[in-house]
């Protein structure tokens, strides 16, 4: 028994255990997603997060220890963002004809995301730093955190709101667009990237390659627009 305890102490101190657990949890989430007929309601990220959170909680493992292993997966977000240039390049023919619709959808999608979040939060009695933390939640994490700090929000709260926005977007986007009868993959992908950043983009790639490419552009452009507009909106509101 003490051998097992020793092994646990040894493994839980290094990155291997939680790195393996992260990949395994996602593999289980992805298998569940496929088993459910690729239903948007069984989001692989959500399944993996639930499994890992339950494991951390039941073993009393702090998030910092977990992240010591998971950081290797987290780091790949950088190269993955750079790699979004590939589908952009492959779809460059489609891009040219979509420039004007993209600019319009970017402005409207970005403003609606920021203003409606603040309006609903206000209606529910949120004020001050908590309310401001909502403003950049549709932008990709690194931009949203920076913006939150600049406008007087709480960056750690914004980090959580950004991830939740992505998961909500990834879950609702397919049923919503099917209900609206939208069959244009460029429009579906682009608006998803603007409203639900990288997690929405990952969902778009699961559905259609063109949608994924346009989601990547939407995410990148909304990162830029949120960085520019959020400070103005925050100053105008408060």
């Amino acid at each position, binding site marked *: 028994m003490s051998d097992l305890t020793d092994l646990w102490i040894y493994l839980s101190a290094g990155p291997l255990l939680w790195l393996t657990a992260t990949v395994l949890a*996602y593999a289980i989430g992805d298998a569940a997603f496929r088993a459910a007929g690729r239903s948007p309601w069984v989001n*692989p*990220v*959500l399944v*993996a*997060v639930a499994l890992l959170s339950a494991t*951390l909680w039941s073993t009393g493992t702090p*998030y910092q220890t977990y992240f010591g292993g998971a950081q290797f*997966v987290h780091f*790949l*977000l*950088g*190269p*993955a*963002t*750079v*790699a*979004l*240039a590939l589908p952009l*390049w*492959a779809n460059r023919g489609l891009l040219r004809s979509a420039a*004007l*619709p993209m600019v319009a959808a970017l402005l409207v*999608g*970005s403003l*609606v*995301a*920021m203003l*409606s979040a*603040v309006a*609903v*939060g206000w209606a529910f009695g*949120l004020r001050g730093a908590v309310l401001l933390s909502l403003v950049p939640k*549709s932008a990709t994490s*690194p*931009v949203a955190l*920076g913006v939150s700090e600049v406008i007087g929000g*709480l960056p750690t*709260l914004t980090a*959580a*709101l950004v*991830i*939740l*926005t992505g998961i*909500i*977007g990834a879950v*609702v986007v397919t049923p919503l667009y099917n209900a*609206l009868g*939208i*069959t*244009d*993959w460029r*429009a579906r992908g682009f*608006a*998803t990237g603007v*409203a*639900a950043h*990288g997690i929405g983009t990952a969902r778009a790639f699961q559905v259609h390659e063109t949608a994924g490419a346009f989601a*990547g552009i939407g995410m990148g452009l909304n990162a*830029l627009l949120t960085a520019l507009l959020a400070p103005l909106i925050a100053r105008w509101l408060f």
Partner: protein
Amino acid sequence: MIWALVLLLGCQLAGESVARLFAIPLPGPVLGMALMLLLLVVRPRIYEVVAPTGQTILANLSLLFVPAGVGVVAHLDTLGRYGIGLLAALVVSTVLALAAGVLTFRLVARAMGQGPDGGRAP
């Protein structure tokens, strides 16, 4: 694959450096994406080098958000205090932004004579 990694990481490194040096309010990787696009425009052959590795990473993009997702659970106490208001704000604003964006895109595309699937209208 090695050259793909060199190019992907190199673009990210260059993006991070430019963002820091010139205090640009964009994440380094987003500037790295713009740089990679520039490389592809100048040297289209790079596509064949980077595409296999890059597309493998993109095909598993969801996996990369799992560590940050677990981090949300670590903030549950903050979220719990304002839970209902924050959750309502997130759900409503995300659904509205998704719908407003896609409808605006289609409105402008239709005005330009593009059909429901994005091609020329029949």
